[in-house]
């Protein structure tokens, strides 16, 4: 006969941000399970302890990028973060992403983040029409290989929330938008190169990056926005000296 108390899973304390920017942390005791993710923890709280908790997720498997939060001080995908790997003294502190307006609890307004993608001319601008033949791009060309290194960004905002320069200079475009701009700069089918270069060379553009590499260290896809921004800096410097900006 087992002791019923031993059947009950042990719990651990989790502090979760509640309210808007003026809110505070609220503590919950959450049952501890093997292979438990931080998203599992938040979901348990919402389903069993406080249904008013607001948070955002969709795929649960690291594809959509919507569940990013600040876990024990660092921006992470909660769905791909095991409690085992991040708990400090057996506790978790879960907050919304940094550098974005808090809507409620763990949900931030991503609009400023994507507005900066638009400001960096992150939209593809086609030069061909449907009547033209397919563009032939060699997979081994340097430009296409540069795109390979950047294209997997899913816009989760972890790099943006981890960037010191975004904190110090709120109009800085940020690593994700600049990584997107570098992707399109290398796309031979795109026709918006000069306008894009001007957009990312303005005050708050790629030159503002201090190469701290927090974006590169935090990127869950293991991309290097720092390398993309360095590429943009070289282009801007060359264009300034050639007088083509």
């Amino acid at each position: 006969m087992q002791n019923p108390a031993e059947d009950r899973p042990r719990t651990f304390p989790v502090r979760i941000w509640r309210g808007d920017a003026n809110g505070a942390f609220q503590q919950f005791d959450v049952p501890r399970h093997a292979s438990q993710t931080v998203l599992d923890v938040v979901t348990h709280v919402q389903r069993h302890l406080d249904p008013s908790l607001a948070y955002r997720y969709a795929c649960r498997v690291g594809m959509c990028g919507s569940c990013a939060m600040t876990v024990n001080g660092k921006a992470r995908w909660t769905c791909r973060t095991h409690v085992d790997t991040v708990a400090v003294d057996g506790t978790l502190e879960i907050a919304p992403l940094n550098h974005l307006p808090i809507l409620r609890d763990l949900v931030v307004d991503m609009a400023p983040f994507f507005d900066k993608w638009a400001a960096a001319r992150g939209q593809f601008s086609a030069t061909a029409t449907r009547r033209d033949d397919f563009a032939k791009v060699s997979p081994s060309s340097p430009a296409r290989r540069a795109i390979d290194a950047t294209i997997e960004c899913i816009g989760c905002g972890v790099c943006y929330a981890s960037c010191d320069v975004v904190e110090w200079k709120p109009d800085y475009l940020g690593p994700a938008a600049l990584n997107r701009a570098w992707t399109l700069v290398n796309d031979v089918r795109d026709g918006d190169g000069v306008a894009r270069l001007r957009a990312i060379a303005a005050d708050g553009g790629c030159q503002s990056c201090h190469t701290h590499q927090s974006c590169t260290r935090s990127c869950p896809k293991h991309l290097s926005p720092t390398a993309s921004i360095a590429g943009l800096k070289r282009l801007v410097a060359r264009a300034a000296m050639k007088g083509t900006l």
Partner: protein
Amino acid sequence: MDARAPLAAGAAMRGVRYAAWRFVLQRASAAVLALCVVVHLATIIFAVRHGLTAGAIVARMQASAFWPAFYVVFVIAVAIHAPLGLRTIADEWLSLRGRATDVALAAIALVLLGGGLYAVASLAG
């Protein structure tokens, strides 16, 4: 730029070019300073080991055109690099930006340039 484009767009384009040139000048002056600082420090260490006197320094500065020219380049690089770095610090840490800040930084650049060149001229006799 289209000649019919509004004046505001022209000002924005100038802003982009200034931003790009600030970046180029900061990096280029940093490269010059990296070399100058190494030569300057090596010279000081060499001079100290061989008995540093004010007379020896003045004599070296007046012996050839190399050292005055070297320090003129050094001073110009400092006058470019330091205000641009301060501009970033003022922007990011103090939220100071705009015309008044740029005027103050230009004044700092002129003080560094004037003071540095005056010192070089005085030593070079």
